[in-house]
Structures are given as structure tokens and as C-alpha cells.
């Protein structure tokens, strides 16, 4: 890792610490000198320096499209940045199956769904289907996991009914549409229902999607959150460890 003299990490253009950044945005002003200077003033307010407005295009209906380059003086001490990660190092396909067989002694029941009005199934399928994602097998492919994919637009109530009926160890919730934060109340609602049903402790609750972070998941009351590019093996490893921990705790009361 290359940090400037003061130990802070800055953006890198073509020399260490030069802080070079590219920005673009539209302004509700006709393209021209004024739009260019308003863009410059805006970037100055962000504390940026050596600002070059390199494009002030006419984007139609008296809007200007701005492209700019600038230097960002600020730096970040990487050691003081909290990186919240969901999983310990992943176990392989074989290790997960061996771990479940050894520690749980029975199949791990996992139920997944895209809930509320969300009709996006490709993401959850990538985690649960046989084929999996980017060469990593989906949960259905794990002999020690009993995976149930309920598909899309599943109301929270229906999902909870399935969890009870199937005696689920874990629930996977996919939320892809995040416009107007439609996903937040929907995700929170499920946790409330699990608590009302008295099975919150018994079921490991995980949510995921391109705009879901582990931090957001924890805030919403989930045990973990997985974002874009997640591999099924990462999810399988986390679930196996979490479910085993839960069952041991209930068994030994610790």
C-alpha cells in the first residue's frame, strides 16, 4: 500500500498523493460561461482545488452537463476505517458440507425469496440455484443443505408461514429495487414478523442485493448482508457457522 508522507491515502492520478479526481453532473442552467463558473464554485465549496471544468455541454431543456477534474487535498488513514465484513474466511464446498454433517448432524434448512413487490429473481437464483454464480455452486447443489427458493414478489407473511412450516434454520431475503427506499420498510417488516412469531432467535436472517451492505443489514436487524458480486460459497460458509452456533447455544443455553 502506497501512502503519502503523512500516512494518508489520497486519490492517485499520475503521481502519489496528487489527489486527482474526475466528476460529472448536470446543472439546471443553460450551458455557457455562467454554468461553468457555477460548477467551479460548487466544487470549491467541496474543498476541491486546482479545478478544471473540461466540458460544459448543452444537455437540452436549458440543462448543462459538466465534466471536471480537481485535486482532493483530504486523505484517509486506512487503519482508522472500519471495514465490516460478514464472513470469516470462506469454507470450500466440501468443507461446508463436512462442517454441517459433523456439527449439525442433519441437513440445514434454508428458505429464500425476493419479497414485497420485488420481481427480481436472478440475484437470489444466483445464490440458491444448482448452477450458482461465477463458478461457485448454488445452495441447492450442497447435499447437506435443504434449500427452498420461493421466487419473487413473496409477501413477508407468506415467507414467515413457510419458515415455520419447513422448520427453517435460515432465511435469505433478496431486495433489488431500492427506489424511494421501498426496500427498507419491507425488510424491517420481516424481522418484526419473526419476532412476533417467536422464531427470531432460532432463524438466521440474511438479506442481500446489489445495494445491500452488511452494515445496512445489521441496522435493519439482520444477522448479515451481502452485496453485489457475492458468491454462494460465502453465503453457505456464513450460514453453516451461524446456524451451528445458534443450535449449540440453544442446546447448552450459553
Amino acid at each position, binding site marked *: 500500500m502506497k501512502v503519502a508522507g503523512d500516512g494518508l491515502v489520497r486519490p492517485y492520478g499520475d503521481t502519489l498523493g496528487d489527489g486527482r479526481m474526475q466528476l460529472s453532473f*448536470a446543472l439546471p442552467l443553460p450551458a455557457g460561461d455562467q454554468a461553468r463558473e457555477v460548477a467551479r464554485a460548487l466544487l470549491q465549496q467541496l474543498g476541491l482545488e486546482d479545478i478544471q471544468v473540461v466540458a460544459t*455541454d448543452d*444537455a*437540452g431543456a436549458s440543462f448543462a452537463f459538466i465534466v471536471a477534474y480537481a485535486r482532493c487535498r483530504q486523505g484517509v488513514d486506512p487503519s482508522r476505517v472500519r471495514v465490516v465484513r460478514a464472513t470469516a474466511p470462506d469454507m470450500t464446498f466440501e468443507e461446508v458440507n463436512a462442517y454441517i454433517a459433523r456439527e449439525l448432524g442433519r441437513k440445514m434448512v434454508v428458505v429464500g425469496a425476493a419479497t414485497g413487490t420485488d420481481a427480481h429473481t436472478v440475484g437470489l437464483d444466483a445464490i440458491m440455484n444448482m448452477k450458482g454464480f461465477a463458478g461457485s455452486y448454488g445452495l441447492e447443489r450442497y447435499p447437506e443443505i435443504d434449500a427452498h427458493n420461493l421466487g419473487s414478489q413473496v409477501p413477508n407473511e407468506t415467507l414467515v408461514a413457510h419458515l415455520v412450516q419447513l422448520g427453517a434454520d435460515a432465511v435469505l431475503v433478496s431486495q433489488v*429495487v431500492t*427506489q424511494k427506499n421501498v426496500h427498507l420498510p419491507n425488510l424491517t417488516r420481516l424481522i418484526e414478523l419473526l419476532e412476533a412469531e417467536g422464531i427470531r432467535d432460532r432463524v438466521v436472517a440474511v438479506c442481500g442485493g446489489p445495494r445491500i451492505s452488511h452494515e445496512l443489514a445489521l441496522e435493519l436487524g439482520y444477522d448479515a448482508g451481502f452485496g453485489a458480486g457475492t458468491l454462494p460459497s460465502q453465503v453457505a460458509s456464513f450460514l453453516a457457522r451461524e446456524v451451528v452456533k445458534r443450535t449449540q447455544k440453544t442446546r447448552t443455553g450459553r
Partner: protein
Amino acid sequence: MATIRVDPALVEEATGLARQIVLDVKEHIDAHTTTSVERACCRLLDIDGVDDQGVPLPNVVVESVAQAGRLGRGITYWLANASLATGEEPAQLAQECAAGRLDLLRLPSHRPEEVLAAGRRMAARAVEALLALRNQREELAARLGSGPRPWLYVIVATGNIHEDVLQAQAAVAQGADIIAVIRSTGQSLLDYVPHGPTTEGFGGTYATRANFRIMRQALDECGEKHGRYIRLVNYCSGLCMPEIAALGALERLDVMLNDAMYGILFRDINMKRTLVDQFFSRMINGFAGTIINTGEDNYLTTDDAVRAHHTVLASQFINLEFARLSGIPDHQVGLGHAFQVDPATEDAFLYELAMASLVRAVFPDCPIKFMPPTKYKTGDIFRAGVLDTLFNLVSVATGQDIHLLGMATEAIHTPYLQDRYLAISQARLVMNAGRHLFRELEFAAGGAIEARARAVLEQAVQLLRELADLGLMAGLEQGLFAQVRRRRDGGKGLDGVVRREDGYFNPFVEYMLGERGV
């Protein structure tokens, strides 16, 4: 010409098989109507507005007759009879029903010939209104011109129709030819059409008559200002398919998403309901001069394009035959496909050239709708721009007609104003630079591109053979399309399917299909 050499015998066989598949379900279509078909008739008969609980009057009228088990006679019959009995027009009749002051079934029934004649007179007025709107479009398009093909198709989806108008005006100023207002998430599943202008929506703006009118008017002003006719698109897929088709026709919308199978496959709407609805909605769109668009792009979101191109072609043959059954001329059947081969595949660009050229060659008279790469885009908006440039080039190189612009931010958010500005200006640059490429390019005889096209056509014929043997409904039950299995009586909306009584009366079919009438 970049027209690919295609075996005419295979095309003929595929067309025949598709025709047979469609005719197999014709019997089911002719034997049924649906709540949404009848609501569409209400719309055409000028029934609009909502009751005090906000329930649209077409729903009130149709529900009342459906609950009494008499919808099979056709709502137009009851309205015609009531009109004769009360001297009132359908609009007032609906108000009376809503107020509980009138029960269409409790009025004295006039002689059938009188009722049919009155029904035909009422229908004739709606039909003339549609013809007038159709002529108005043709005059406007002739006077203003329509810009070179492929036409640039852009979506707006802010949730607020007034904000949509502002962004649509900016898009037209930037060079867009067609504006599509994306519907709010899940509107497919609503069994009513929301009323009035709307300012709230998830991932889109509700399709309502008022929103249609607001945007159509704004685009007419834009068209005058920028000197070309701007076309407006909406989506009639879902439980209100014929009804939204009717509203679109009444407000002079130009293009309607109207796929015969999309609702079944991607929205889990019952197939019996969908097949009847699509017939009537396409009849209205055909008659109103509206270009329909079909949704074969969806097959390539849930399946790998290299493996699924033949399902797109097979579905296009079927969609075209269903459209012909509803009387739509080929030049109004905007068959859809998409640029969705995984860009990491070696020769991905050759696969795309082969498929786009094949679709162009197989359906020479149809305005083909080519849709952009989506699922392989990531947050790297610069890489997304490369995919869209390759897409733009294939589109102009293979003579496509309607070009849905790709957005660099596809994997991030619904488009910002600058996303559209860049998409439009870049598409115009590429298409101008490749203006006559379609005339100039050819593919090596017996080369890989030609071989790929032939293989896709052969596989499509194979799939159509299976479907013709099984029948469409059984084929859908076995998941032959998009690997999705749908049960015949499963999904939403079966409750809205009603067996036609012997005296079923729907004058719109006679007028709109004319002698081709079913």
C-alpha cells in the same frame, strides 16, 4: 446488404407452425371474454372517472354484471339495452350504477335486434373517434416527419408525471424520437387502472389516462418545436391489458408494449386470461394504428443469450401470428429482441451481428425493436458505455427500426438527465457514423456468422414443432419458454375469465376486425 442468407423454406415452416399454435388456442379465445376486455369496451364507450371510494366506474359496471353471472352476454349488450331503456348514454349509466340508483340487469330488456343496433351505434362513435386520432397521427407525422431509423427510444421513470414531462422534453431536445414512461413497479398485477395524474410511483410512473394525455400534449409541443413527430409509449401488459390499450388508443399513444406471453411468463398472470386479453388489446392497437412491441428481451435476462436466441425467434413467430389474428398489419408489429450476449464471450459481437441480421431478414416488414445490454453491466459506467456503443453499431449495421437506448448507469439507478443526454448524443454519433453500414456490410458465405444464424433458425423451428405438438398451454406448463413453468389454471386473474353466452355481443370486434372478424 448485411442481410444474412436465410433458408426461406425454414422461415415458411416456422410461420406455418406458429400459425397452427395460435389457431389451436383460437377456440379458447372465441369462447371467452374477461372482466378487462369488457372494461375496455366501457372505456371505448366513454365510461370514465371513479366512484366515491375511488373505484373506477368501468370496474363498478363490469363487477356488478360479472357478480350476477351475466358478463358472458357482453357489457355492451347491457349498456345498449339500458341506453334504450333510459335514453341515457353509457357515461351517465355508469354514474347511476355507481350511485346505486341503477342495476343494468334490472331494466326491461328490449328486442335483441334493437339492442344490437343501439350497441353498434354506440360502438360506431368510439370507432370513429379512434379513426380520427389515427388520421391525426398520420397527418402530424407526415407534416413534421419522423427522423431517420432506427428511432431513438428513451425511458423516463421519475414517478411524477410532471417531472417525467420535463425530462421527456430534455430528451427530445437531445434527439430522442420515442419516449416511454415506465410503469410503476407491479402495476401489471393491478386489476384496475388508477385514475388521474400521479406524482408517486416506485421505479416508474403509474399508467393512467390523465398521465397519457399530459405527456402526449407535451410531446406534441416538443414535436412542433423540434420539427419531428415524437412517439409516446406505454405498457398494457398485465391484468388490464385491453383496458390500457383502449386508453392508449383514446389518447393517441403511438406504441404499446403488448406481448402475447409476457404476462404469463414474467408476471405469473393466468394464461387463459392473458390469451383472451391479448387478442382484444391487440385488435384495439391494430385498429388505432398503434405499433405494438413484444418483450422477447426478457428471455435473455433470465437465460444465457447464446443458448436462448432460438427461444426469442420462436416467440417472435408466435407473437406475429397472434398479431395477425387480431388484424394488426405487419408494419405495426414491433417484434423485440436484445443485445445481451455475455461480453466476456469470445466473438460475442459476431453472435450479436448474426442474431440481429437474422431477425431483420426473417421479418422484413416488421419494425424490429432492439433493446440494450442490461444484465452484464456493472457500476463501471465507462465499461457500460462501451457495451452501448457496440449495441448502437449493431443496430445501425443490421437495419433495426426501434432502438431502445442503453444507459451507462443501468446497474445503478433509474436514468438521470445526464445519463439520457449521453445515451442519446452518443447513439446519434454512432448511427450517423455508420449510416449506410447496413447497405455495405456482408458476411463471408459459409462463415461463422451465417452458420450461427442458420443454427438459431433451425433450433427455433424445432421448438415450434414441439409447441405445435404439445399445444401452447401444455408447452407453457412444461417451461419451454424462459425455463419458467406455468400451470394452466395457476397465476393471477383466472377469476376474471368468463365463458361467452350464446348471445355474446361485442360490436368492437365487428368494426375493428371488419370482414376479417372472427
